[in-house]
């Protein structure tokens, strides 16, 4: 098989040179994106890579995709292989918290060292522009009258979108297990369902809808932010009398068994990265809210978020 093997090596060489970047001055890092290329975690990891490399915070930064089971496959592999190495990172977030609880994953976030929360995206509840529904109040009334008659199209079961739908139902006194949530596998598919009026409403991170909202194809009924977000012409859930606040946050963690020096070093690297212009520009172009929170403050917040997620997943009937 000389020909394909040569092609394989050639392709690998091209890709390797393409990915490696310039000569290493600072430390070389490896970031695990525990998902396939293209999703939020992958984009987060690659944006970090770009900011660190172009602003010379790290030498070469390598991103590795380890997809599977809401990030828990990548998490288990990382906890196992990277032990004590301050030059390896893993990206994760709220969806990973949900997946760990639902799958009763053997390796949890206790097995890694949470370092910092980087970004957040609020959830938006939208309808197609030609939908008869004009306000979130109408959705709530419909939901109270017959929970099954409101179908919610969003991402995978037990993810942030599902949790948001469950929390809204709970907040208005509707049994969360009765929520007619319809999961779609990819952003494109659920967006198509909402645009085509197949589901009553769509619920996802606002960024997934942004382009369609701007081109006038979708109407935002409400967002799950604590206060109005500049650039989004919609009330918060709280304004509409529903006490719900949800944010799909993304974070970065280090391996278990870091020395205090090792942890301080990598925290500084992340801190430097979060301050760079490249990173700030990325946040803007991707529409990610800056929710930077590092070190012990984040560890405490994470513990609280995990407990909350557990409660709501139990309420929806997805966890025990």
């Amino acid at each position, binding site marked *: 098989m000389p020909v*394909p093997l040569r092609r394989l090596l050639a392709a690998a060489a091209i890709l390797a040179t*393409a990915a490696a970047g310039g000569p290493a001055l600072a430390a070389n890092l490896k970031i695990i994106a525990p998902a396939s290329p*293209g999703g939020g975690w992958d984009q987060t990891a690659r944006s970090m890579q770009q900011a660190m490399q172009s602003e010379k915070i790290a030498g070469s930064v390598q991103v590795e995709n380890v997809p*599977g089971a809401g990030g828990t496959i990548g998490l288990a592999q990382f906890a196992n292989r990277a032990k004590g190495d301050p030059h390896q990172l893993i990206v994760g977030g709220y969806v990973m918290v949900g997946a760990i609880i639902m799958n009763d994953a053997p390796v949890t976030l206790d097995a890694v060292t949470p370092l910092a929360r980087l970004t957040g995206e609020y959830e938006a509840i939208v309808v197609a522009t030609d939908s008869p529904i004009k306000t979130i109040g109408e959705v709530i009334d419909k939901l109270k009258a017959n929970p099954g008659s409101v*179908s919610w199209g969003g991402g995978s079961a037990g993810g942030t979108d599902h949790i948001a739908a469950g929390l809204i139902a709970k907040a208005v006194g509707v049994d969360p297990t009765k929520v007619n949530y319809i999961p779609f*596998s990819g952003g*494109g598919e659920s967006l198509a369902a909402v645009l085509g009026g197949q589901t009553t409403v769509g619920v996802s991170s606002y960024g997934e809808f*942004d*382009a369609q909202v701007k081109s006038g*194809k979708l109407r935002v009924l409400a967002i799950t932010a604590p206060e109005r977000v500049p650039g989004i012409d919609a009330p918060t859930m709280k304004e509409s009398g529903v006490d719900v606040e949800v944010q799909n946050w993304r974070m970065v963690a280090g391996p278990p068994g870091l020395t205090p020096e090792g942890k301080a070093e990598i925290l500084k690297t992340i801190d430097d990265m979060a301050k760079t212009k490249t990173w700030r520009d990325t946040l803007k172009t991707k529409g990610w809210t800056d929710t930077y929170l590092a070190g012990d403050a984040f560890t405490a917040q994470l513990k609280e978020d995990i407990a909350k997620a557990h409660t709501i997943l139990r309420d929806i009937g997805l966890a025990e």
Partner: protein
Amino acid sequence: MDAFVSLAGGLAVALQPTNLLFCLIGVTLGTAVGVLPGIGPALTVALLLPVTFKLDPAGSLIMFAGIYYGGMYGGSTSSILLNTPGESSSIVTALEGNLMARAGRGGPALATAAIGSFVAGAIATLGLALLAPYVVSVALAFWPADYFSLMILAFATVSAAFGDSALRGLTSLFLGLALGLVGIDLMSGQARLDFGVPDLLDGVEVTTAAVALFAIGETLFVVSRKGAADETIEPIKGSLWMTREDWKRSWKPWLRGTAFGFPIGAMPAGGAEIPTFLSYATERRLTKHPEEFGKGAIEGVAGPEAANNASAAGTLVPLLTLGLPTSATAAIMLAGFQQYGLNPGPLLFAAKPNLVWGLIASLFVANALLLILNLPLIGLWVRLLSIPRPWLYGGILVFATLGTLGANPSLFELGSLLALGLLGFGLRVFGYPIAPVVIGLILGPMAEVQLRRALAISQNDWTVLITSPISAVLLTIAALAVILPIVLKTREKGIVFGEDD
């Protein structure tokens, strides 16, 4: 004819030397990663994204599109020659294509795949340029109930690929359906048949299964027979190039494949696999040489190869008109657009006409480049088959393993490759067809999810399957596809129905 003027303007952008170079790099890389099982166009674009950040947006998007088209293209080469489908959309190509290659007709098989891809790509790109807004509104009219019926149609028609015995075919199909149940249930988020193994939560990887069942199972089977090592396969018998007869038998399948691939590719949940199944089944029904199916019929390569390339162009319809990414590669291309602060959708056509039309025009250029790049290589590729048997089979095993590990470097993936390879070997030994297993594995989970979605939306009202006009029509065709051949067979053998050419 505004579109033609814009397209001409786009062509001027695409033919700029730097853009031409980007396009060439794209199709070359795309072909290379398409040939390798495992490493797909999505990962390649993701790896290149940070590198292209400082480049001109038009140039890098043109390169990404070239990778996408090249990937669809390259998958056929390894399918035909080595029975190792590089992408799930070229699984069907392996069925007849590899048989052709073994019969010394690898040259014509690769040629019909290459030219068919070119024809389909060119027509579908024209469709993208002229019809995108209409196609997308049709695509959005497909509800879950309609998708479910489309999949039932695919199931009903591909039963033709089940071999001679319906019982054996169905046994294989149900094996595939069972494999498809493994993993997290998308609707409820609960794990099924995972046996406590976290690696199984995402189910059985389709490309791993296809490579294992086709390539590894087949290889083990061949070498397990006595005297296999001495047997030589003629790499070239007859013409290396397509004969007059080959052309005659290929052009209609190319067009029909395009007609399946483009609209279904444009559907948000359509994908590239279903059109290849439908195309294969159609060609098998319509062929004037039914005796050649199962022994290497050129129609069975021409149609599906056209279908998968046309579906790649179809995927760009919702991406460019609505900003809807419907495949992994499209999702990364969307990230690429956003990297430059561009949001695909109707506004993009107005705001950046040069970029959009340059991109569309470059797809024509990519197609032409692919043809120029690949046709001369055919002579080289078929030489692969003249490698001594033991080396060739050893090489296939190494190649299949490397590709799988390249896509997902895990011990578990390697283990499942071997286990499924042994399963494929067992199926071959006992005479069960392989294709239905893979078809069940691909279509089963899709059909299940769409049906349950349809029922959730209708609040458990089953009549939604007949009250939706699209669904009703598709189910009727599916019923006819099953009943008609039986009726015809009892009346008179050999009647070809439904052929309107």
